[in-house]
């Protein structure tokens, strides 16, 4: 027969163990569901980005293959019209000029939507081509370097290109910077994309709160897709530095 203090002791111990198991189970369950939730979020972002890329591709192809040739045909027909009146000739010339401009803009938009050369060329070449196009129209000096022996996985290229595109776009639109340096370098623990400008800088939290920070969100989403770390070092009037670290096995 067990004595009373023993009975009390064992009952308290067993009850405490049961309650401890409940608490541990609660914590484990929260962690497990949180992991699943993050995975779900990631899959959602992946799906969104994939759809976005496909849609961009479709629009770019439509612009390039359908609207472009049509405008060229219009121009051809316009040039074949025989006009005797000087005023009409001048009008036709102007219209032809506008069509040329429209075709150029259309090509530009199609290129921005889909850098088709990324399939055939390296990221370095495509980015340099993109910067070349921007440089001619913008007062900002953009440099881009990829260190030697850096191997960028093909799957990662499109995301890095979109991130670079977003950084350049944001810098031109908001920073007021005169120079932007971009570099990709490969280190043992991953691939690093670093950008640095000498613009007016910003407060990331404020940007997110005030404007929604769509550009930043887009970069963050791409980083999440690559399992990459994203860090911004910036302050008012001190420029902006962004460091993106893509893990080796991303």
């Amino acid at each position, binding site marked *: 027969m067990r004595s009373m203090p023993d*009975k009390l002791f064992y009952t308290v111990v*067993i009850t405490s163990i049961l309650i401890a198991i409940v608490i541990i189970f609660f914590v484990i369950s929260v962690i497990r569901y949180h992991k699943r939730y993050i995975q779900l979020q990631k899959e959602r972002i992946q799906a969104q980005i994939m759809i976005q890329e496909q849609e961009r591709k479709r629009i770019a192809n439509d612009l390039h293959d359908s609207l472009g040739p049509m405008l060229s045909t219009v121009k051809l027909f316009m040039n074949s019209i025989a006009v005797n009146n000087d005023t009409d000739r001048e009008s036709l010339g102007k219209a032809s000029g506008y069509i040329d401009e429209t075709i150029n803009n259309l090509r530009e938009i199609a290129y921005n939507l889909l850098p088709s050369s990324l399939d055939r060329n390296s990221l370095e070449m495509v980015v340099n081509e993109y910067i070349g196009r921007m440089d001619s129209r913008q007062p900002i000096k953009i440099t881009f370097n990829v260190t030697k022996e850096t191997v960028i996985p093909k799957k990662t290229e499109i995301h890095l290109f979109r991130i670079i595109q977003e950084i350049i776009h944001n810098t031109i639109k908001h920073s007021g910077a005169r120079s932007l340096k971009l570099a990709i370098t490969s280190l043992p623990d991953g691939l690093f994309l670093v950008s640095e400008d000498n613009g007016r800088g910003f407060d990331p939290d404020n940007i997110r709160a005030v404007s929604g920070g769509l550009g930043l969100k887009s970069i963050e989403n791409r980083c999440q897709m690559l399992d990459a770390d994203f860090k911004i070092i910036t302050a008012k009037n001190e420029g902006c530095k962004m460091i993106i670290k893509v893990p080796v096995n991303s």
Partner: protein
Amino acid sequence: MGVLINFILSQAIVIPIIMALIRIKKIDKIYYPLLILLLIGLLSELASFICINVFKTNAPVIKIYSLVECCIILYQLYLWKNGARYRPMFVMLGLVCVIFWIVETIVFKNMNTFSPYFRVFYAFIIVLLSINQINAMMFYQNVSLLKNPVFIICLAFIIFFLYQIIYEASYFIGSDKSTVANKIIMGFSYINFFINLMCAAGIYFMGGSKDDPYSHYFNGR
């Protein structure tokens, strides 16, 4: 005074039942096991009252009610889980509980005495399942949890059955042997009252077939 208060508190099960009767047409079929459990709870209260007066013990009523309560709550949690892949797990848990009850009550011939083991065991299982249900809802549901009947009732299950574990332990020690145990046993009526109020609140928020035009596609079992 204490006996009267205890009696009044124990009859609080009538509150969620009245709430359910008022809202019965608006309540989805998926919540019916819980409503049936409340009715069985009321019947067991009446049966206990009669048994105590006639046989001087209500142990058989409590034993049978415990098994029924365990099975119905497991079925209710299975319905809320809403996935066929959980079926084997719930069937297995139900079987384990029934076997446990048979061994404790019939094999060890404990029908007329109070023993805590089965009541602690199924309370423990229900607490774990309710925690799991609440966590799943926290991460996957986009609606306000405070107005979600499943959340409110699972929370009530967790509070009630955790207290039941402590209550059974106190009962096992004996109310006459320890003042703490005695206070825990006396506190059960208050917890019971509070839980019934939570159930009533849960039933108040139960929507269903009329609120959601698509619900019958998903809950038409």
